[in-house]
């Protein structure tokens, strides 16, 4: 019987990372889409780093920062009584960083596509910038939000290297599907590896298929 707790843990991790990234990534993407700041290229580069860095590099630095002897790690221990390394919360934090570009980039390009024009129109009708964002920009960026959330979710599902570095392989705590598959293969339990691997494959394909089908049916707004 495959390890169902790993499946459940993976879904929880992906959902948590997606929700947190939606909250953090939206303002970041909104800022990036609208700013003329000279810091923009630097922020863009940092945001894109997880795309090019090997997961082991990211995982290594996260391990160093989150270790209980480091300032951030010890602060977390004193606040929660739990360590960030080799824990579910540490995995969530790592996933948020790891999947950051998958949330921010689709959102930023969606916001750029909407442009300044509808925002100015909303402002001239008495809407604050925040009001304009929620009442005009967000509804016009539905496709961007959908794409960003699905990519973030799916990408977090498939995470392996960072998880292994930061979380290890603790059943029910940090042992996600990709780790479980790895372990099944290492211990030559191919049948169980097959079930999990095929499950992940079918699930990912179905989700992506739904997104692309939805994007086709849901017309882009042309103002």
């Amino acid at each position, binding site marked *: 019987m495959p390890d169902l707790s790993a499946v459940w843990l993976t879904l929880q991790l992906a959902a948590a990372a997606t929700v947190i990234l939606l909250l953090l990534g939206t303002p970041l993407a909104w800022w990036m889409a609208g700013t003329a700041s000279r810091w923009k290229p630097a922020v863009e580069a940092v945001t894109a780093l997880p795309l090019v860095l090997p997961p082991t590099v990211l995982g290594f630095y996260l391990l160093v920062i989150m270790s209980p002897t480091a300032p951030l790690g010890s602060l977390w221990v004193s606040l929660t009584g739990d360590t960030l390394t080799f824990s579910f919360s540490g995995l969530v934090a790592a996933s948020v960083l790891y999947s950051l570009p998958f949330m921010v980039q689709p959102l930023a390009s969606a916001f750029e596509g909407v442009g300044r*024009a*509808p925002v*100015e*129109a*909303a*402002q*001239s*009708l*008495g*809407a*604050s*910038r925040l*009001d*304009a964002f929620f*009442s*005009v920009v967000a*509804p*016009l960026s539905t496709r961007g939000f959908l794409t960003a959330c699905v990519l973030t979710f799916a990408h977090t599902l498939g995470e392996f290297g960072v998880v292994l570095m930061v979380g290890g392989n603790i059943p029910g705590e940090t042992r996600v599907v990709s780790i479980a598959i790895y372990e099944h293969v290492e211990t030559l339990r191919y049948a169980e590896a097959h079930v999990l691997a095929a499950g992940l494959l079918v699930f990912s394909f179905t989700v992506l298929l739904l997104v692309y089908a939805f994007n086709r049916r849901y017309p882009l*707004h*042309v*103002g």
Partner: protein
Amino acid sequence: MSAETLHIQASLSVGGFTLAVDEHIGLDGVTAVFGPSGSGKSTLLRVIAGFEAPSAGRIALAGEVWFDSRAGVNLAPHRRPVGFMFQDARLFAHLDVAGNLAFAERRVRRALPGFERQAVVAALDLHDLLARPVAELSGGERQRVALARTLLSAPRLLLLDEPLAALDRARKAEILPYLETLPRRFRIPTLYVSHDIDEVAGLADHMLVLADGRVQQHGSAAAVVERLDLQPLAGRYEGGVLLEGRVVGHDERLQLSFVDVGGDRLTLPLLARVAAGETVRVRIRARDVSIATRRPEGLSIRNILPGTLATVDSDPRTGVASAAVQLQGAHIRARLTLAAVEELGLAAGMPVYALVKSVSFEGRD
């Protein structure tokens, strides 16, 4: 007549372009902001609306300060009670027509009698469009909805940024009547930006002429139109006179209208939208007016108006002269060559005939 003004003192540099203005714009009626492309008209409106901040200056509406670089005041655009109508309508594509109107209503800054949805929808004939998605509207319908949406926000100042520029001739004719009547009907002071003087000549009370980011002329529309001949704008001499007259009748067969201007009768191409007895404003460009010292005969020109030469100003540098002819009630301007002035011996006080071809009148409908 209101003594309140919009004071705008602003300097702003974008790229190689500099806008530098210091004007008090009267808050009564429609002020046309006219000038060639790239003269800074739209930037001026955007500065007033708060979409661009001047590097230095002060903007105040009737004493209420919106921007003051020295005092560090810069009111956010949504706190400035202006309505902005964009060239490209900028309707919200995720809402239908009614949704776009409701967007403005929900954020209305002041409850103003007369600005209820019913009145605005009726004024712009939008009733049949309310349930339509924005994507299915024609260009003219979009601008009507945009104007309605702006009116529903009950602005204290209406800014129209080339509202007709994106439309073809037929659509322009569809929207212009609304733009001509609504600012007055809803009593909103209006700044109307256009690069087309014929679009604004008929509806403006005041006119502000911009070129290269600086104000060249600012005054009553009639006075500014007369002075426009002093310099070419957009490469053309557009100066002349704005005459107000009463339509005395139409000839449907010949497609002509007759207008009484201070006792003189003008023959114009048919003004189909104006009934007999109504007042119209006609712009006659100085370059379309010729002068004769005797009443000509056997001439195709329909308007032969007897009058007296009031002034003749010659400019030897350009070889061009500007003459003013006093008619019975109004006066008219003619742009002549220096050669014609000398050959005919034109001088102030001479009795002359001003000749205006009927087809030279810019069609107002």
